[in-house]
């Protein structure tokens, strides 16, 4: 099937996160019309043979009528789930090589997820914006106007300060009381061990944690024509880098970093999904949801 995805730069030209989110979600939902039931709250349903003592309310009588056997419908989730996005707004998220910064891309991603969760799934959604501190917090809710509140929070995001996973994630544990889905959106410029160590406790509370690793294509494969003095956007440190190193040594190290983060997060039961900001958002989101559905 031919699927036309939305270029991130096109999304950047759309004013208003709601419209962005609707455009993205409606786009990929329309592309997934054969499986419209994919969603965060549709966790799983299974049939098992009735046994004594089971609640008769859960017997599927339609099946019994056709097969004369009693099967019990089982649901993994109780009701609607809660989606909480942890958005990293540190200085490094402001990096851009093609018009859409990582923070913009992350905002579109969050907005799309929120739209999908609230408008399509009737789930609750919340957001925590952090860098080295918690900058903004909107508690997950299904209340009327929640989407607007979330989008407003996203609008106010601006890159600043440094990333520090340890300190804000300690506080997240206090905010996240209920089980749900926690999506951490960051460029993860920290050692994988520290990241996993900071994020892992969220998993312990029964939440499903997804790490969205947002990277600019030039961060994955930098292009330097001549020696350049690179200035760190968070620390303002500078370093003279040769094109040769950018082509060879750096590529090795970033690949190793991504691979280590993927391995260690999975080892800790965390989902990891790498997103290149040059990639169409709906395509990326569709791929992630497909993978998630397949896993369940």
């Amino acid at each position, binding site marked *: 099937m031919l699927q036309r995805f939305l270029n991130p730069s096109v999304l950047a030209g759309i004013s208003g996160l709601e419209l962005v989110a609707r455009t993205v979600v409606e786009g990929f939902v329309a592309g997934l019309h054969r499986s419209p039931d994919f969603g965060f709250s549709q966790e799983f349903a299974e049939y098992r043979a009735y046994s004594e003592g089971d609640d008769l309310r859960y017997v599927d009588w339609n099946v019994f009528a056709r097969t004369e056997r009693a099967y019990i419908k089982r649901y993994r989730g109780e009701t609607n789930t809660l989606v909480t996005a942890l958005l990293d707004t540190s200085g490094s998220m402001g990096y851009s090589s093609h018009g859409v910064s990582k923070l913009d891309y992350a905002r579109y991603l969050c907005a799309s997820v929120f739209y999908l969760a609230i408008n399509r799934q009737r789930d609750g959604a919340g957001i925590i914006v952090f860098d080295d501190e918690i900058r903004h917090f909107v508690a997950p809710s299904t209340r009327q106007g929640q989407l607007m509140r979330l989008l407003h929070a996203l609008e106010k995001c601006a890159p600043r300060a440094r990333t520090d996973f340890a300190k804000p994630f300690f506080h997240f544990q206090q905010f996240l009381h209920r089980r749900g889905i926690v999506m951490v959106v960051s*460029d993860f410029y920290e050692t994988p061990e520290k990241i996993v160590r900071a994020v892992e406790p969220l998993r312990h509370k029964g939440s499903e944690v997804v790490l969205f690793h947002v990277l600019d294509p030039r*961060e994955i494969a930098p292009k330097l024509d001549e020696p*350049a003095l*690179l200035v*760190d956007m968070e620390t303002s*440190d*500078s370093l003279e880098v040769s*094109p040769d190193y950018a082509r060879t040594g750096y590529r090795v190290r970033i690949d190793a970093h991504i691979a280590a983060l993927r391995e260690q997060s999975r080892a800790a039961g965390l989902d990891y999904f790498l997103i290149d900001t040059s990639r169409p958002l709906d395509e990326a989101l569709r791929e992630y949801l497909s993978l998630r559905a397949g896993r369940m």
Partner: protein
Amino acid sequence: MGFLAPWFLAGLAAIALPIYVHLLRQHNVIPLKFSSLMLFEKHTQSAVKRRRLRHLLLLALRVLLLALLALAFANPFVQRDPAAAASGARIEIVAIDRSFSMRADNRLERAKREALAILSGRPAGGLGQVLAFGATVQLMTQAVDDPAELRAAVQAVESDDSRSSYAELARVLRAIAQTSKLPVQVHLFSDMQKTSLPPSFSDLQLAPSITLIPHPLATASKANWAVESVTAPRRLLDPAKSRVEATIAGFATPAARRSVSLAINGKVMQTKPVEVPASGRARVEFLRLDAPHGFSRCEVRIDSVDALADDDAFRFSIERADPRRLLFVYDQRQARSLLYVRAALESSVEASFLMEAVAPGETANLTLSKYSLVLLSDAANLPEAFEAALKGWVRTGGSVFVAAGPGVAARRRVPVSGGVVSDLRYAPREGARFRTVATADTAHPALRRAGRLDNVRFYQVAGIEPGDARVLARLDDQTPLLLEQRLGAGKILIFASALDNVSNDLPLHAAFVPFIEQAANYLAGGETRAASVTAGSFLELRAEGGAGVAAEVLDPQGKRVLSFAEAAAARGVTLTSPGFYEIRRAAGGRELAAVNADRRESDLEVVPAETLALWQNTGQGGVDAASVRESKPWAMGWYIMLVVLLVAMTEFLFGLRYLAGEEAS
């Protein structure tokens, strides 16, 4: 070596720019913001090293380009010092005056002795040249280094009795300096006559490379008496009416009484005393020249003992001759023209013609060679045989005057000349009812005294098409009135009207007599020559196209002037020596030409020292401006600009290669 615009050398500071770009700027890498340096390491040294090595050639080219550009604008030059350049090579010229005045006090011999002394003291191997000059400059040698040849050339210089001209000498010296491109040192041996200076001092201008060293043979003016001029008739027809007038001049002389003699063919005929004022002139008149028939060698002489004895006598020649025969052929209807022409010629003093009038029908047995001139007065019906004979006679030097009246116009053809008559033009009936002369060449001998034929009324004029004839006068309607046509060695003068006082009223005007007299004299060949000419004058021997018939010229010593080849073809001859030249022209006729030295040479006043110094200063070492002009620097700016162009192209190619390499990497 120097710079015409040295301040442009400040542009060399621009060399710092490529050095900065290539060397210093390499360390100033571009600062780029990056999300995190967590995964980067410092790794630059080797790349910078490699890049510096790779661009060194490009840097060198750019530095060279800028340096050459600054140098080109500074415009370096090389000073070519003419003296230094030719320290070893120069031409030493010995110029010897051989004019008439050099005969005084044996000046020419002294000049040659001094010239030989100069040549003896000349360093061996150097170039030398000998010139002899008077009115013209003769190159006795080319620029040679053979002392013997130079000495022989000096010995060969002889007086040519012409008037010396320093302007001509300066012109030749300029030409030598220009062609040789070597410094020229001129030793001038001359009596430094003031009269040899040109009217304009600028004609004496010497080239800057010329150094003039005068060797004056006279330092002060000398007293000199001379027979300055003689006015005498060229042709002696009536001795009783003849008169000779001589002018005796004294140059820097005191008042004195001189005895003046007239000698004919070596025999003193008359002697008269004359009082010559101090540095002044006096006139003497001799009457009744009793000369024999034919040419006589005449001379007016004064008794004088001065420095220049050769100008104490003035030669002239006269010809005692019978009247020349003139054949007048006229139509019977033109009888009045005979009357007017005869009256005109008989009343003339200078012209003497014995006129024989015949009708066209009476011309059968005439011998044309005995006539000096044939006048056809509207004679339209000439017998063919006579006209053919007339043409042949004209071709060999005879002359014809044709009056083209109504008869000729009716035949539509001018006799002898064959000219076409288009019509017979009448004066208009309205207005003045006559035509007048609008333009006339009064310089022509036939019209010199007759003038513009003013107030003459023309009623009938033949419309003659000029063809190759020269139009001497035109009427106010542009009809040619008087034409001259050459036929072989002879001349035909065509008057486009009659001489009968019917077609025009010319015979009634005062201009008629001089017109007829001068025209007849001109056509008969005795009108122009003076009794004497100046040495160096040119004498015409034959008309154009008259080659084949030999002419003969004997100089005063009786030697042939012309070789056989020259005698058959030479148009003229230059009369160089004072004395009597015997001449026999190609068209026939003998002549005796008296030649005298230019009497301006008799004035022995010398050039003032200041003038001489000024002349010297026009050459080397004198006027600064001239030196500056000669030492014009040789600027190299444009040549360097060419090199700049080459280097720029090379830099461009290297730059392209560099860019291509960068893009490939």
